[in-house]
């Protein structure tokens, strides 16, 4: 058993050491070079980085203004298979570690704009706001804001901004956590909560968050 595992562990170590990268001699992230790399991203994420909501199909998240280290981790996870996406994996695989840093820095410094016209019912408004701001502790659903920060504007490298993200993208990701197809969140923090959310919760909170002003 031990022998069998070895090559796999070696590949894991290789992937992690490439992914971790801080020990390797990498140049500082260069957003200008990152813009060149972004040529391969704009078909979906758009030239302004605001992404696009595609009802009923895979939605393309807004990257503009997100935390650079968060984007970096997602790209490494796509590349390493820790986050599954048939769409993103081939692109992530084309990137060197330096390019990942550059393109992440490029998107992080773009100014995001609100591009989705969101409409929600009064019930969705009330439920979405409640879950995002207060949570529902009787079901052990902590508020979005308790990790993603006030106004769901994001906190550090692990808790991305949700305000003004596309509703379909948020909905699809919550579904992915709920059904177990996404699990690259630290310590299952999002997965645990998503599993307790109903379809109604997911719809309401996705729409409510998408409607919030981007900080």
């Amino acid at each position, binding site marked *: 058993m031990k022998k069998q595992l070895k090559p796999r562990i070696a*590949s*894991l170590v290789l992937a992690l050491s490439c992914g971790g990268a801080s020990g390797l001699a990498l140049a500082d992230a260069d957003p200008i070079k990152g813009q060149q790399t972004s040529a391969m991203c704009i078909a979906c994420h758009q030239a302004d980085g605001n992404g696009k909501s595609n009802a009923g199909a895979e939605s393309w998240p807004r990257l503009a203004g997100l935390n650079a280290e968060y984007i970096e981790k997602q790209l490494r996870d796509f590349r*390493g*298979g820790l986050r599954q996406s048939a769409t993103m994996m081939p692109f992530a695989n084309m990137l060197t570690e330096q390019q990942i840093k550059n393109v992440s820095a490029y998107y992080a410094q773009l100014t995001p704009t609100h591009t989705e016209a969101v409409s929600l019912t009064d019930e969705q408004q009330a439920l979405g706001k409640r879950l995002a701001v207060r949570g529902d502790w009787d079901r052990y659903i902590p508020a979005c804001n308790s990790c993603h920060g*006030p106004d769901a504007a994001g906190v550090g490298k692990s808790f991305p901004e949700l305000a003004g993200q596309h509703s379909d993208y948020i909905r699809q990701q919550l579904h992915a956590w709920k059904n177990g197809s996404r*699990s690259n969140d630290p*310590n299952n923090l999002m997965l645990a909560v998503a599993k307790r959310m109903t379809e109604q919760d997911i719809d309401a909170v996705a729409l409510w968050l998408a409607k919030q002003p981007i*900080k």
Partner: protein
Amino acid sequence: MDIANKRGVLLLFGIMACGITVADTSVKLPEPKEGQYVHQAPTLEDLEKDESLKPQLKAVIRKGYDLFMNTQQLRGENVFNDMNCRTCHMGEGRKMWAAPVWPASTTLPDFRGKNQHVNSVEERIAGCFAFSMNGKPPAYGSDTMLALVAYQQWMAKGAPVYETNIAGRGFGKLEKPKLEPDYGRGEAVFSENCSVCHGDKGQGQKNAEGTVVFPPLWGDGAYNWGAGMTRIFTAAAFIKHNMPLGQPGKLSDQDAWDVAYFINAQERPQDPRFVGSAEATREKFLNFHKHTLYGTKVNGRVLGAHTNTGEKPFLKPDNLKPRTFEQGSDSW
């Protein structure tokens, strides 16, 4: 297939072959014991619907809720660290095993071992401000105190007064661990489970605007050496039943004890009851400090051997004082 792609597939295969499955993230909390009073505290929705309450009272209760959830609005006045009431009293102060606050309203006034006298509800809240918030309690009878008392008492609606056998009171109690709590093991538990939110040095995390989102666990922004959370058993039960956020019961009892020990073996602002040295203060309040590491040597240094009061420009708040009832009678 290029090398990167191959590596990805190998890695994916490796993960699947190693048997990594979707983690069990269910809520694991103790069941109430037979005969215990189980309380369903009302929510803000219930408040709005409750026509028996006068609108003026509702306004005060809402203010209490607001202060409870965002106690940082009292920063520099009553609060001198990064804590909010909800930091410890999770789930809006309503939830079992998350130190629900409503029992204080049905069980006080009562004698408390911590300060060896009979405490009112206001005095109990003052204790939180003096120790957990490293601050200066709002004055007894002040608007702030009234609002906090009102929110707390309203949540007790329907609960029997002076019933003390309450399910989920405090953070619960864990059995003693099999192994003595250990700094090194605790540090490993911390790195793996806590640091993503609380920071690799326990410093907590703020958002870009400087608002505290994840509280610091030690250092100037954390609870001081007089806070109940410095007791290892209290922190262990809090952690076991509330952390990581949304996954109560995830850690083993041993992990909870170990990480509680590790966190409470770090420095924090001085105990406001300080009498000149940590050892002497520990001795004077040994009924409390026998459960903490304060005034003891950990990794070669005595914890609490300093005069740092954090951001707070004084040691002891003046409204934290003893009571005597020597004139009162023992019996009729």
